[in-house]
């Protein structure tokens, strides 16, 4: 599997370039033409990123996450979810780097072989940073009315977390 990950990108690049050469595409010109669009898009998403990332930074700094944690704690107790996994579930849709930070904190303080670390690992590995993805992707095309995209994204995260709790309690306890 490591070999698959290592070779995935190089082989995609070789296939695309070789196919282009065989089909007599002017490789260099086509590449630079596409690359120009990449530059434009990356700059275009800045206002959208500022809006969402500043909002999320403020939210994290405000201590609101701890408040939500206190409200949810009794529910999770019933499901035998270790208390230290809770911040993981709240932070995961908001920020990828923060979620990774929470996870490595759990792995180091509770022990890498602990149930909490395994549950947090499965949660981190099976979900996405929903808010960030929506901000970047919709920002790139200038869409501000998300319709049902956010609802489905967050519901899928919740279902994923529930599934993680069930699967882990079945496999690791």
């Amino acid at each position, binding site marked *: 599997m490591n070999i*698959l990950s290592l070779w995935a990108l190089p082989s995609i690049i070789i296939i695309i370039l070789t196919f*282009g050469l065989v089909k007599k*595409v002017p490789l260099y010109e086509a590449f630079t033409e596409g690359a120009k669009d990449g530059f434009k898009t990356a700059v275009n*998403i800045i206002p959208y990123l500022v809006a969402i990332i500043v909002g999320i930074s403020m939210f994290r700094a*405000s201590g609101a996450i701890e408040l939500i944690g206190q409200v949810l704690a009794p529910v999770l107790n019933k499901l035998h979810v270790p208390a230290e996994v809770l911040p993981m579930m709240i932070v995961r849709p908001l920020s990828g780097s923060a979620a990774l930070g929470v996870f490595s904190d759990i792995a180091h303080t509770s022990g890498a072989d602990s149930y909490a670390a395994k549950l947090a690992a499965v949660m981190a590995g099976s979900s996405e940073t929903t808010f960030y*993805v929506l901000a970047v992707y919709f920002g790139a095309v200038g869409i501000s009315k*998300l*319709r049902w995209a956010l609802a489905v994204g967050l519901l899928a995260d919740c279902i994923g977390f529930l*599934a993680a709790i069930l699967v882990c309690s079945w496999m690791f306890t």
Partner: protein
Amino acid sequence: MNYIFYFLIVISIIAGAANGKLSGVVNSILTGAELSVKVAFSLIGIMAFWLGIMKIAEKSGLAALIARAIKPVTKWLFNEIPADSPAVGDIAMSFSANALGLTNAATPIGIKAMEELQKENTDKTSASNAMCTFLAINTAGFQLIPATVIAVLIGAGASNPADIIAPTLIVTTIAFASAIAMAKLFQRFWRPQPVSPLPVREREEFVSEQSELTNPGEGSNGGTQ
């Protein structure tokens, strides 16, 4: 997006004041703004590279070939876009890159897919069903090997870090399947985008005139989430 933006900021300020962390909240405006520009700038190079590579794939006909190969699946998932749209190939490439954990390649290609989907969109300010479905697939975060997570576990001295692979695969599949199911369900019951009998080109002009006339925020199209 209006409500998300409003509540994120207002709740943060109120909660920050209640917790005595107001100065931290104010400082986070600066760090957040800096971070967003850093993120965008770190994307520039890799975006340019992958969109360059994808341009070659598009011109050589390889993208169309991939799109044709997965047509049965995309036709069912994205029933509102033409099967030969360049978006289909981009969606497939972006999904595969995500599944393999190649975020650096997945994001630029995914954004390109969104740009192609926007061309088919009838209302340029609101998300089409195809876009929502694509992002539902994306935010479900389907991944074959959680490489980063395993790396952290190894770093923390796990005795058998690979034992999380199987449960992660089960969970990610459940989340992914339910995201698709919900996408199909929401697509049916959510208030639809305005449908116009005009052909796409004329419809675009019609919509842009309309949005200039009506008060922004009071559009008759889909709800603001």
